């Protein structure tokens, strides 16, 4: 397809469009779950403060991991298969370490903001942030690595696809992991 004499629909455009369409559809699904969750979220005061950061953390950490893996694949520092590779291990371990620190940060500051601004002393927020982050980590880390490799091996550019994919899966997995923890806690 041409607009103003320029070809606009190329392989990258199709990849961005497809991945984004998948992403927003997944986002709508997350929206429906959020609608269902609204009443449950109210049972733990302060969880609304934690929610955006918790959802975003997974996109940030695993989006960066996928982008780094994409750059490493493009520059041929790693191969698109899970094998003994020091650079791959470094990237995995770094992501786990970052997730632990950031989830702790989110939990502690959600608790402090909730206590200072709304007068709710609810330290369980810290526990929820850490346990839910671990549940999501177990699902998302292998998904991120294997799908990045799979897309690259099959001729797709992970840079175009993984961002939307990770944030969508991250949202859905995060809401579910929060639900699991809340069912245990409440």
């Amino acid at each position, binding site marked *: 397809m041409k607009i103003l004499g320029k070809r606009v629909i190329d392989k990258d455009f199709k990849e961005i469009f497809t991945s984004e369409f998948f992403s927003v559809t997944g986002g*709508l699904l997350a929206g429906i779950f959020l609608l269902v969750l609204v009443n449950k979220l109210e049972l733990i005061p302060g969880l*609304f403060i934690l929610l955006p950061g918790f959802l975003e953390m997974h*996109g940030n950490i695993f989006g960066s991991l996928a982008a*780094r893996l994409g750059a490493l694949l493009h520059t041929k520092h790693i191969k698109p298969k899970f094998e003994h590779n020091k650079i791959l291990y470094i990237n995995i371990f*770094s992501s786990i370490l970052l997730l632990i620190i950031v989830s702790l940060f989110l939990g502690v*500051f959600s608790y402090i903001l909730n206590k200072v601004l709304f007068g709710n002393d609810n330290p369980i927020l810290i526990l929820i942030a850490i346990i839910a982050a671990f549940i999501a980590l177990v699902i998302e880390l292998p998904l991120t690595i294997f799908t990045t490799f799979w897309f690259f091996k099959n001729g797709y550019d992970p840079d175009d696809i993984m961002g939307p994919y990770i944030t969508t899966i991250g949202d859905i997995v995060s809401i579910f992991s929060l639900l699991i923890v809340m069912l245990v806690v409440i």
Partner: protein
Amino acid sequence: MFSIKEIFKDSIGVLLFASALSLIAGLFLRNVENDLIIVLPLIIVLPALNDMIGDFGIIVTSRFTTALYEKKVNNIHSHIVKHLFGEVMPVAIFCAAYISVVAILIAHFRGFSFDSSILIKIILITLITTISLVLFVFLVSIVGGLYVYKKKMDPDDVLIPITTSIADLLSIGVFSLLVSILF
């Protein structure tokens, strides 16, 4: 991306900064909670809208970073930047319209009654939020990417958390502002 220390050093500051911004977004969310519960399509559309704008930040940053590493781009006027914009903006506009319409239909099936003015308002809110923030995120990704790369840091590690956090904070901010004006 070749040592834990390097990744940690590049990432931790921006991740904590991003998380702090998200906590502010969380406070906004708590404040607009009642509006969102009344107009059901708005709460359905919120995660998709947030995701979409953050996604474009990730796409633009990671594509631009790869181009930087491959030495295909060195300034903001490069044809790669224009090409990327031409790819991203039409997809953003289409997706904004799509999520608005689908969210309204889903809400309708859950008993939410609406008329044409509500339909137009929801589409307007989504479109204005999307276009303004995609423009902003695009600018941050490109200008920030050039700056961070010149500082010998990895733009993927630094800019992805920043763009997604700014997108989260501003999308909830712009969204709630438009909701308060139009509803």
